[in-house]
């Protein structure tokens, strides 16, 4: 049935629209193809649609891009990536100090905006919140120099702390290395002493065996000696 509005057949009611596009683009298997071709013998809707789709495909083929210049692709790194690399170049303690400093600055600015006032006088810390009805901040007021000093102190403290941690880690690492080295030395010394002891024992055994052999040869020589003319062996 022809659709008056768009001049096309109405929606395919035979339920084989997927088969139709599979067939149209040549992706149907041999059996599917044969099955759909026999379906086309009696389904006018599919046959008409196949013809119309073929026409659309020919029209689509008219839009070719021709010779276009190659798009130039530049693989440049984002600013975020570069920042990450830059930050990565600093040691951990410096990154930590910078982070804490930034966080402290943000906190102080936020508190300042919220009407919070912090004051350091004679070693006492005073904090106040809120604003007067005319919008002016309540006393005590903290000056920009004090804020700067607070931030600097916080950064310096954090830096010191991170340095100490870093040095402690280094010292611990050195101790560990020393301990390992001492253990190795002890093991080598023990092995050497064991070898010396074994050599000493072997030498002693060898000397005993030599002495035994010499002693028995002397006794044998004493008893087999002809001493009738000089029984004392001293010419008496």
């Amino acid at each position, binding site marked *: 049935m022809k659709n008056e509005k*768009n001049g096309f057949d109405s929606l395919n009611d035979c339920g084989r629209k997927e088969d139709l*596009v*599979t067939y149209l683009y040549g992706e149907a298997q041999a059996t599917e193809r044969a099955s759909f071709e026999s379906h086309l013998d009696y389904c006018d809707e599919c046959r008409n649609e196949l013809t119309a789709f073929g026409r659309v495909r020919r*029209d689509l083929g008219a*839009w070719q891009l*021709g010779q*276009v210049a190659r*798009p130039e692709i530049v693989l440049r790194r984002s600013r975020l990536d570069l920042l990450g690399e830059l930050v990565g170049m600093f040691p951990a303690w410096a990154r930590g100090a910078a982070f804490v400093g930034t966080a402290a600055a943000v906190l102080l600015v936020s508190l300042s905006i919220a009407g919070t006032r912090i004051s350091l006088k004679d070693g006492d810390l005073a904090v106040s919140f809120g604003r007067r009805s005319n919008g002016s901040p309540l006393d005590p007021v903290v000056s920009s120099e004090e804020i700067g000093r607070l931030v600097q102190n916080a950064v310096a403290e954090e830096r010191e702390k991170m340095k100490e941690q870093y040095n402690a880690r280094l010292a611990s690492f050195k101790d560990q290395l020393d301990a390992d080295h001492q253990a190795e030395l002890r093991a080598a010394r023990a092995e050497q002493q064991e070898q010396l002891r074994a050599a000493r024992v072997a030498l002693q055994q060898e000397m005993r065996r030599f002495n035994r052999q010499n002693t028995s040869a002397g006794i044998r020589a004493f008893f087999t000696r002809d001493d009738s003319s000089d029984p004392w062996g001293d010419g008496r």
Partner: protein
Amino acid sequence: MEFSDDQIIERTLAGETDAFSLLVRRWERPIYGLSLRMLGRDEDARDVCQETFLAAFRNLQKFRGDSKFSSWLYRIALNACHSRLRKQGAMAEQSIDHEDDSGRKFEIADGGLEGLPERLQRDQRAGLVRKALYALPAEMRQVIIMKEYEELTFAEIAEILQIPVSTVKSRLYTGLQQMGARLEKMRGLL
């Protein structure tokens, strides 16, 4: 010797970042074509192309290899196209006219005066196709572009869009129907 996409990815991830340019050279034209047909403007298509390869380069470690690299790349490009289309909103219809100009420029640059009447006729048809294609909803347009111009299989399109094959076929069917109806109507107006 030609390296496979997977081999080039391995080399790139191993630190040989220049190897990635082989992938760019291999896939820039399909990605550009897809973007141009989706968006209709050469400038936008080039921007999407750039964005796509940059995103792929930066996220290469996340590419798990479950699907083909090209499918992953097409998906990134389509997401970038959709993002731009959303920004353009109602302006999308206007981009057809830009494309009419740029498209014709490409076609005429193909040759001299020889066969000019035929080429003009073809350009006229191409102009109609562009208009009919841009009038389609983006989800149907992308399926027609991938099937007709990028010559991907139904399974590949389904993988790129992460939808069932049957949905791809159904969208293509409806898209072709609507294209046909619009083209008939436009021809009647000429």
